[in-house]
C-alpha cells in the first residue's frame, strides 16, 4: 500500500484540525483549540495510506515552520470562507509549499462554508488560477462534513497517479 505525507497549511483558526478530525474520526467539536507544533494522523483511503500533518497555523507573529512541509507529496491549503484575510493568504501559502516541495499538487479548502458567505464560482476560479498545481478548490464544512472526503480523495487520486507513473 502506498504511504505518503500530506500537510495541511493555512492561517490559524481556519479549521485545519477540524477537517482532519472529520476525515479521520468523523467527529467535530465547536470548541476552538489552537494547534501548536504538529499532530500526525494516519488514514487509509483507496489504495493509499495518508500521513496527515496538521500543523500550527500561520499567525502574524509566528510563521509556519518550513521543516514540517519537507517530504510532502501534496498539500491542502485551508482558508476560512468568511475571513477574507485568510483567503488572501492562500497565495503566500502556495508559494511556501512550493518552496519546500517543487510542483507538489495542492487542493484548496474554503472551510466553514456552512456559515452564510458571499464567495461565488468566479472567486473560486480565480483561486484555482493562482497556480497551475492547484488541482481543485472546494467549499468544505468540517461541521457538516460536506466535501471533506472529496478533497482528500481528489488529492489522493492525483498523487497516486503521479507516483504510479
Amino acid at each position, binding site marked *: 500500500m502506498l504511504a*505518503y*505525507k500530506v500537510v495541511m497549511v493555512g492561517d490559524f483558526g481556519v479549521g485545519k484540525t477540524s477537517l482532519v478530525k472529520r476525515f479521520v474520526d468523523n467527529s467535530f467539536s465547536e470548541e476552538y483549540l*489552537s494547534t*501548536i*507544533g*504538529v499532530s*500526525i494522523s*494516519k488514514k487509509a483511503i483507496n489504495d493509499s495510506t495518508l*500521513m496527515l500533518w496538521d500543523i500550527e497555523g500561520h499567525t502574524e507573529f509566528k510563521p509556519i515552520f518550513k521543516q514540517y512541509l519537507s517530504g510532502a507529496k501534496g498539500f491542502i491549503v485551508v482558508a476560512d470562507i468568511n475571513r477574507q484575510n485568510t483567503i488572501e493568504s492562500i497565495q503566500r501559502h502556495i508559494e511556501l509549499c512550493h518552496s519546500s516541495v517543487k510542483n507538489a499538487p495542492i487542493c484548496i479548502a474554503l472551510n466553514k462554508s456552512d456559515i452564510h458567505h458571499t464567495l461565488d464560482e468566479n472567486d473560486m476560479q480565480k483561486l484555482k488560477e493562482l497556480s497551475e498545481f492547484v488541482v481543485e478548490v472546494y467549499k468544505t464544512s468540517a461541521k457538516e462534513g460536506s466535501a471533506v472526503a472529496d478533497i482528500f480523495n481528489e488529492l489522493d487520486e492525483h498523487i497516486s497517479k503521479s507516483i504510479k507513473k
Partner: protein
Amino acid sequence: MQNITNLICLKSNISYIVFDENFSILDFSDHLENLVDESEHLMFGADIRDIMWELVGMEERMHELYENSTYELHFPMILKGNEYYDLDIELFEDSVDKYFIAYLSKKTRESLSYANTIKEMNKKTLIYESEHKQSKEEHYQLINKRVLNFNVDMDGRITLVNDAFLHFFDLGRDEILGEHFSLFFKARDLSIEDKTSMIFNALNMNSEMVAFHANIIPIQKDGVINENIIVCQDITYLREIEKELEFASEHDSLTGLCNQFILFKRVDELIKKCDKSGDSFMFCFIDVDNFKAVNDNYGHHAGDMLLKHIAEILSDFVRKDDLVARVGGDKFVLLFDMTFTKESKKIMKKRIEDLAQKSSLVYTQDDIIDFSFNIGVVSYPKDADNAADLLKKADKAMYKTKKK
C-alpha cells in the same frame, strides 16, 4: 551499560531509536512504546516508518543525511498523546558502519507554558476577529436594511438579491431568483436599458405602497454589459413632502380651511352635478364685521386667534359634505350642497348670524372679543352660472347687508 543509558534517557526525558539506511530498527530505549504510533510494530528489524509516521516521505532527506550533505533533521513540538516532543535525527558513524539515531525529547514545562500562551493568544485573536466582523456586519445590516439591492440579467430576470429585499417582500430567495423584476416593482416604463435611475413602486408585506428611487449600475464583462445592479432607496418620505406641499397649496396656512382654489374646484364639481340633477346649491359669503378694530384694540395675534376661532365654529356648523373656505383676510365662504327655498335661505342666514353672537372669543380672562358677521347669500343656478360670478354676487349681496 545499557541500563545506565536507559537511566540517563529516562532522567533527561529522552527516548531514542537506532536504525539503518533501510529504515530497519536496530535498537531503542525503554518505555518507547508509549511514544510511538503503533507500538505493536516496535521490534528489532521492523521498519521505523511503521512506528514513527514522521519518517514517511523523508526517504530523500534521510539519504542526503546519510551522504552527509545535511547534518541533522529537526521537527519541533510533535504532539504525542498529551505531550509535546522534539524529534531530532542524526547520523552516527563508527569504524564499521553508519546508523541513524532518532531522539525524542519531551518538552520542558517552560516551553509548554509558551505554547499555551500562543494557544490563548490565537483563541483571543479569533474571538476578537469574529466579534469585530459581527459588529461590522450588524452596522452594514442596519444600513442595508433600508436599501434593496438586486441584480438582473439582460432579460430583467433577478440573479441576486440582498436580505433587505427578502425582508421587504417577506419572501425566500428561491421564490425570487429567476423571476422578472416587474413581478415585484411597478413603474411607468419598466425598460432599464440606457437608464441610470428610475422610480419604482412596490407593495410591501403589509400591502403598503412604497416608492423607490432606483440606481441602475451596469456590470461589464469583457467590455460588454451582461448584468445590472439595481439599488433601490425608499423615497416614501418625498411623497409625504409632496403631499404636505399639495396641502399647503390648497389650504389656508392660518386656519387650515380650504383656499379659493379648492372652493372654485368644488363649485365647478357642484355645478356639473346640479346641471345633471336639476338641483341647486347655496353660496354664502361671510365678512367679519369691524375686524380691523380687533387688530387695532387687541393686536394682530388676537386678530389671528379670532380668525382661527371663526374657522372652527363655521367648520362645526356645516355638514360633512358642505365646505368652508377662507377667501381673504376676514372673508369666508360656506358652500351648502343642498337645494334651498327663499325661506330656508333666510333661516340659514339667521342661524349663521346667531352663531357669531353666541360664540365670543375668550382671548384672555379679561378680554372677551365679541364679533358679528355680514352675510351675502346667492345660489346656483339662480344668481350666477360659474364660481367667480357666484363669489362676486355673494360679495355684493354681503355689502348690501352691511350698508343696511
